[in-house]
């Protein structure tokens, strides 16, 4: 019996569809890193809040799914900007920069993650909620060899590509985007050039959180929504960001796809019970041997 190419194709497709979601979250992480020089350990919770906001909008308020998606992105962006302004901002060096020496930001990120998860417990409880989305207008894809790709996955792929394109356009072809890139490149010079650096920082953070929220709302119909969903997504997204290269935006998506495919293949051909370890393994291997990732700039040593 020959090698089952059919299944292999299926696993690759599954890997790509979930990997794209990892990529969107990784996009946010990379954005924060290149803009603010910090690794945001509470980013998984932004993803989770996005999913819940989307759920509330779609179910309780009753707006159609695409509006819920946009609404969730906006709400989460506001939440993220508030958190950054109130808590993280204080850890800046006085006078314009945003580099935090030592482990302060990492520990703060962990603490914020725990705090956010528990705030979510208060509001929504610990139950997993189903996210029923009316996606009838999206086609369901069928691949040869009896492979079905449900609507939610198709939508995810479409939205991800759209978001990437939009982000690319914003950064490359708008004035604000240029300001954002300037701030990411060198804050002090950007400040001297008259750019409102604190505002740009907030904007970067808000964008990143909005992206994470989009991922959350997209995942909702696939997997149900639960307060603890952020942690695992964070690890996968970190792996994606590292693989693709911290600070590289296309790298984030490619990294995400690679992580998704790698873990699905590992689960299918090696052992399904170790599935999450594959993502960590990839993360550690890349960190050890090519920390700059596939498309990244040289590994920055900031905290």
């Amino acid at each position, binding site marked *: 019996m020959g090698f089952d190419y059919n299944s292999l194709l299926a696993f690759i497709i599954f890997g790509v569809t979930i990997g794209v979601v990892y990529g969107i979250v990784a996009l946010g992480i990379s954005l924060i890193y290149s803009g603010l020089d910090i690794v945001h350990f509470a980013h998984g919770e932004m993803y989770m809040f996005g999913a819940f906001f989307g759920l509330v909008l779609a179910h309780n308020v009753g707006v159609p799914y695409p509006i819920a998606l946009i609404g969730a992105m906006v709400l989460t962006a506001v939440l993220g900007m508030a958190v950054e302004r109130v808590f993280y901002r204080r850890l800046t060096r006085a006078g314009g920069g945003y580099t935090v020496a030592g482990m302060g*930001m990492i520990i703060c990120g*962990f603490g914020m993650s725990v705090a956010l*998860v528990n*705030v979510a417990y208060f509001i929504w409880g610990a139950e997993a909620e189903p996210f029923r989305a009316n996606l009838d207008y999206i086609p369901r894809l069928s691949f040869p060899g009896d492979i079905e790709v449900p609507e939610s996955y198709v939508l995810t792929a479409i939205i991800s590509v759209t978001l990437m394109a939009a982000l690319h356009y914003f950064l490359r072809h708008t004035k604000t985007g240029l300001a954002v890139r300037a701030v990411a490149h060198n804050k002090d010079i950007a400040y001297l050039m008259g750019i409102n650096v604190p505002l740009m920082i907030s904007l970067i953070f808000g964008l990143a959180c909005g992206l994470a929220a989009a991922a959350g709302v997209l995942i909702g119909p696939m997997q149900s929504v639960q307060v603890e969903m952020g942690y695992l997504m964070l*690890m996968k997204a970190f792996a994606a960001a590292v693989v693709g290269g911290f600070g590289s935006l296309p790298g984030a998506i490619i990294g995400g796809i690679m992580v998704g495919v790698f873990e699905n293949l590992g689960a299918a051909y090696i052992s399904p019970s170790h599935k*999450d370890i594959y993502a960590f393994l990839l993360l*550690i291997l890349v*960190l050890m041997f090519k920390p700059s990732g596939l498309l990244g700039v040289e590994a920055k040593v*900031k905290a």
Partner: protein
Amino acid sequence: MVFLSWMADFIDSLAKRHRLLPWLIAYVLLLPMPFVLSALFSEYLIDLANRICLFILLAVGLNIVKGFCGQVTVGHIGLYAIGAVTSAVLALEPGGFGGALGFGWPIWLAIPTAVLVTGFAGLIVGLPSVRLEGAYLALATLGLGESVRIFIAVTPALGSSTGLMMIPAPSIGSFVFDSFTSYYYLVMTAAVVGIYFSFSILRSATGRAFQAIREDTIAASVNGINVVKYKLLAFVLSALYAGLAGALFAHMPPGYLHHNNFTVIEMVTLLLMVVLGGIGNVWGGVIGAIVVAIAYDQTKDLVFYFMERPIVIQPLVFGLSMVFLVMFMPRGIGGWIEDFQRNRRFIRRSEERLGGSTRNS
């Protein structure tokens, strides 16, 4: 404040007689603790004290690599797990009720072996530190720590989802260490010895090398310090502490281990202890461990009723505490201790220069 000064002076005078004297006296003072706690409160506090001693070992160990040497590691709980599971698996009877795998070793052989194995694992965890720093290192160590836990969770031989149970308690002859009080002497001794060795390391050439690396890695290597060797050494030393703590945890009655004793939440709690105590300060780490453990124990039942749902607010408070600590008290309790010691040194030096005591003016 004056009382603290007086205490510190007294301890210094004892130390002048013999280096170990304050330590021996402290140890002797701690010996009757179980009976005191039992009489004043209840036996439960001895159990709490035992757990605090394990936390002290963990916090002090973590401080070596994180505080002295400045390496950002978030996978320490994985080393704790390795120490615990190794010792348990070595000591369990093969094919027994307790777990699928077992070697039936005597416990006094299993525990040191587990410590050494964990030290070796620390070496592996430390390898990324050779090339990575800061958040990258944090990610790598986090990934390693979690991988250890997941591996335990899916391997039936290591307990998997049912856990390892009925892990035997240590015994000398016919005396078995299976009560709170008897176990207290084991862990308290380990904790005191651990704290002592931590100071020894701190004050040795190795410790100075660690701190040099923490302050400025490049300058350290320019000065002839073998950065790779010392970084790895720091990881191994802290891993030894974690291994001992883990092994003692495994054999503590009722002798049960499960993979969710070693999750990221436990790691964050450990971080909180170290941060509260002040990264790099040994006594800070000890105090941090004690404060967090007692706070946790006393507040875990605090339940507020919000919309008729009983809500446990403790985890939220813990998370926010970490954020506020980093924002407002980054040097932790250790910072206060250092300030206190610095003041004393200043006063002493002023006295020497002015020729006489300034205290009784």
